[in-house]
């Protein structure tokens, strides 16, 4: 089945895993290719590099487009009749929703949350909601939490309003799905940061603009998962309905939607989660709320300031997650449930009459002081260790790798990419991968793309290794899996910025910090996919191997891992895309390359063009990496996505099945 050379180290590059009886030959060929690349590099090092120019033509072109918008905001009908109306409407919705917590006060709003929790899932969910909302006050961020909740609700409402119909439509029309898939792909790979600068150009800053940015980020899962749900409704049911003379509309309402309900509820859940993870970034364009605490904390390197806001975001994510998940699985609501919900709401409203509208000061837990003391202690007593870890990694890994990638001729890099993608997936993916990579050069961002690639590669290896070890452990021991699962849940609901906090405190603003944060961010999905894949290996095969006298170790290496190859390669694919997403966020804390270009394009008007181009370049790099790894995984296993990138493969897979 497999060869002894299939050690974990050779999962990367994935093609190496295809080992069979001809493994020695393959190995020889691989070595030969590697030697050729090294020789070519040594021969041509420093030639045909494409050094960075801050004033490249594409940047200027985008900058000019921005100036045109600026000049025509009050003349051009596009603005008078479209963009400005959108802003007005979105702003109106946001302000209307904002009235709710203002009128109800903190006690009333908490009561409302509890009531909704009860309606959604009964006593336990109601308790989670009540405790969660009360904790916002205790953390001292009640008002910020209310602002954030308003923004999230406004964005999610709009996302669902637009996304669900579009999704239903896309679920029934292959053509629309084909049209939407690449658009949604770009929306999801585009670093969130890269939305902001164009958002500012069109909608300027403020809550309305932030709501639109959040909407753009959170709408893809609404469309995708709904489309998937509608598409998966069994043909038999649809045909039966049509045969009985139902109209298209009746079939949709009475067959498609009820059958797809649970999955559509998942779409709602995912839309909420995506919207929440945008909250921090939206603070950069003056969205009120929790995000601003984190942004301020980042700029002052004050962990104590960030922590309450970060915890509140996680709590909010948990509450919303529980409520929407419960709503998906509940039975039709009983009358007693409505009565209980009303009772909770009334309690809240009555309490609000007697309690002050502001959360009482002396109920607040002040965390900043003690937290900062701990951080300071860790910093001063571990400084030696952290500094050495950082410097050694940077000098021994990041710098040489970056040196190689930036001094290699562009054609050599392109050739390596082409061959890796071709070995995995054939000519199609290889051409796409190389085309996207070279397009970054046309954008004038080759060198920065190579720098970003360095940090991604450095992050991917440890993320995959850790994910693999944890995933295998979870697949083998049920108890370990049970302990790990809630941790993974928490890690995946946390907005990516929160990962930056501890890394920043310990290691300062460097590339190493960004790499570290991206590893932490990418591990959970890898673990899940690996665990799933290994758990999915047929027990009969495992039994057969055991009865032949294999040790547990042999079963793992020779049976489980090789048989879960597809899932593991998909995990690698996901790990890479996640790492890329985080490395861009790392532009805020010292990662150079495209991430920094995007950040600086946002905060400096003169760099607008470069920032925008860098956002596009990130998408291109994402596609390149995706094609290299996805080809190897062939058609990936079906997984319902928790976070964005998995869903890239979803829509596509499903319509391919159909056609």
């Amino acid at each position, binding site marked *: 089945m497999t060869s002894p050379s299939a050690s974990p180290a050779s999962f990367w590059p994935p093609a190496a895993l295809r080992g069979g009886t001809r493994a020695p030959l393959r190995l020889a060929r691989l070595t030969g290719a590697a030697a050729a690349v090294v020789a070519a590099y040594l021969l041509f090092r420093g030639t045909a590099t494409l050094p960075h120019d801050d004033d490249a033509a594409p940047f200027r072109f985008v900058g000019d487009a921005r100036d045109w918008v600026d000049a025509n905001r009050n003349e051009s009908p596009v603005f*008078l009749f479209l963009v400005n109306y959108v802003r007005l409407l979105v702003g109106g919705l946001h302000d209307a929703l904002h009235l709710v917590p203002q009128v109800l006060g903190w006690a009333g709003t908490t009561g409302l949350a509890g009531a909704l929790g009860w309606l959604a899932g009964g006593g336990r969910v109601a308790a989670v909601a009540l405790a969660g909302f009360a904790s916002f006050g205790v953390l001292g961020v009640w008002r910020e939490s209310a602002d954030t909740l308003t923004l999230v609700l406004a964005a999610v409402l709009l996302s669902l309003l637009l996304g669900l119909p579009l999704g239903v439509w896309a679920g029934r029309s292959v053509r629309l799905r084909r049209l939407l898939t690449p658009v949604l792909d770009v929306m999801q790979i585009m670093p969130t940061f890269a939305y902001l600068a164009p958002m500012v150009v069109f909608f300027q800053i403020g809550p309305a603009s932030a709501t639109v940015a959040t909407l753009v980020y959170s709408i893809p899962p609404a469309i995708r998962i709904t489309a998937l749900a509608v598409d998966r409704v069994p043909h038999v049911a649809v045909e039966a309905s049509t045969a009985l003379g139902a109209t298209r509309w009746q079939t949709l309402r009475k067959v498609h939607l009820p059958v797809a309900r649970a999955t559509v509820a998942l779409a709602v859940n995912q839309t909420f989660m995506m919207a929440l993870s945008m909250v921090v970034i939206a603070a*950069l364009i003056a969205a009120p709320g929790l995000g601003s605490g984190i942004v301020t904390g980042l700029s002052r390197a004050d962990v104590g300031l960030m922590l309450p806001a970060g915890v509140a975001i996680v709590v909010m994510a948990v509450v919303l997650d529980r409520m929407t998940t419960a709503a998906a699985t509940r039975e039709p609501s009983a009358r007693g449930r409505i009565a209980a919900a009303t009772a909770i709401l009334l309690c809240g409203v009555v309490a609000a009459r007697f309690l002050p509208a502001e959360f009482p000061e002396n109920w607040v837990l002040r965390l900043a002081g003690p937290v900062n003391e701990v951080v300071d202690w860790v910093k001063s007593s571990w400084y030696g260790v952290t500094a050495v870890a950082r410097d050694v990694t940077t000098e021994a890994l990041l710098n040489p790798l970056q040196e190689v990638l930036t001094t290699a001729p562009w054609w050599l890099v392109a050739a390596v990419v082409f061959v890796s993608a071709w070995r995995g997936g054939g000519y199609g993916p290889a051409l796409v991968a190389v085309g996207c990579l070279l397009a970054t050069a046309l954008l004038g961002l080759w060198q920065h793309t190579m720098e970003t690639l360095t940090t991604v590669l450095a992050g991917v290896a440890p993320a995959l290794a850790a994910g693999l070890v944890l995933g295998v452990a979870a697949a083998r021991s049920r108890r370990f899996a049970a302990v790990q699962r809630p941790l993974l849940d928490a890690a995946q609901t946390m907005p990516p910025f929160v990962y930056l906090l501890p890394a920043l405190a310990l290691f300062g603003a460097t590339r190493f910090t960004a790499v570290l944060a991206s590893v932490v961010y990418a591990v959970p999905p890898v673990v899940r996919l690996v665990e799933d894949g290994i758990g999915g290996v047929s027990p009969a095969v495992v039994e057969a191997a055991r009865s032949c006298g294999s040790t547990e170790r042999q079963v793992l290496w020779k049976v489980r891992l090789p048989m879960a190859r597809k899932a593991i390669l998909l995990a690698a694919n996901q790990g890479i895309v996640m790492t890329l997403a985080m490395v861009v966020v790392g532009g805020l804390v010292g990662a150079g390359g495209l991430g920094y270009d995007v950040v600086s394009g946002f905060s400096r008007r003169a760099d607008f063009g470069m920032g925008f181009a860098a956002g596009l370049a990130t998408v291109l790099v994402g596609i390149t990496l995706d094609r290299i790894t996805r080809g190897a995984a062939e058609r990936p296993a079906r997984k319902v996505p928790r976070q964005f990138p998995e869903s890239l493969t979803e829509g596509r897979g499903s319509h391919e099945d159909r056609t």
Partner: protein
Amino acid sequence: MRIGRRVRLLAGVLTLALASGCGGVRVEPGASSAQPSSDRTVRIAVNPWVGYEASAGVITYLLEKKLGYTVEKKELAEQVSWEGFEKGDVDVVVENWGHEELKKTFIQDRKVAVEAGSTGNKGVIGWYIPKWMADKYPDITDYRNLNKYASLFRTSESGQKGQLLFGDPSYVSNEDALIKNLRLNLKVVVAGSEAALIESATQAQRQRRPLLFYFWDPHWLFSRVDLVRIALPPHTEGCDADPEKVACDYAELDLDKIVSRRFADGGGRAYQLVKNFSWTNEAQNAVADDIANNGMSVEDASRKWVEANESVWSAWIPR
């Protein structure tokens, strides 16, 4: 501009379709969703450095406690703040560092902002080293000798070159052009924040580690850490006009306040107070020092200063 024409053409068709019906919406102050329910709210942008926070803190304190306004603070990067003038999301930028290009766009061309006078603070950006380095290598303070010492500043982030530590990505910066045009063997490394710069400077003095970094005056740090400024080619009028070709030091700036036109026209006493606000670098440093080092909140530090300096601020309160 060709794109412009095409979009306009397309837009023209749209106009024809819509013009009869409704009038379209302009981006005007007043059309904003962020518009307050009353005129008693002032929105102040807070840029990410502590000196700015000190000025904003004192103005906020006076507006709230002496004039009865409500202040909304918005944590924003410098250039992003200006985007808020048009629709009323930002009324006041308290401490503006030059930004002639923004003034041209927002004050002259788009006419959404106006200048509201000096803060009284003199601001100057420069490159600094800890004093022990200047004592040990006396000629290091001349930029011409920086290449000789570049290896001292090398870190794992700067590769083979010397490191020039920079602050928040949004800060005013000529660093890349300076390094290129003065042919320095340095690399800009972005620390990400003011706090990171301060921490590095403090460590550089305490542990006698070499450091070359971007910093600015007024700042409380100068009273705690001995720093020496590197002499770059002296600033002359217009030498920094083309950002690509800058090869001279930063100018000493008269830091000023910028307000939205809407606020200047209808801000009443709040606008008057902002306009009158003017204090010394020492005053700002004192408040900033309390915030950064004495564990005071911005509000407490501002109250302390206001209580001790009535003679200064009473002149700002409009009659």
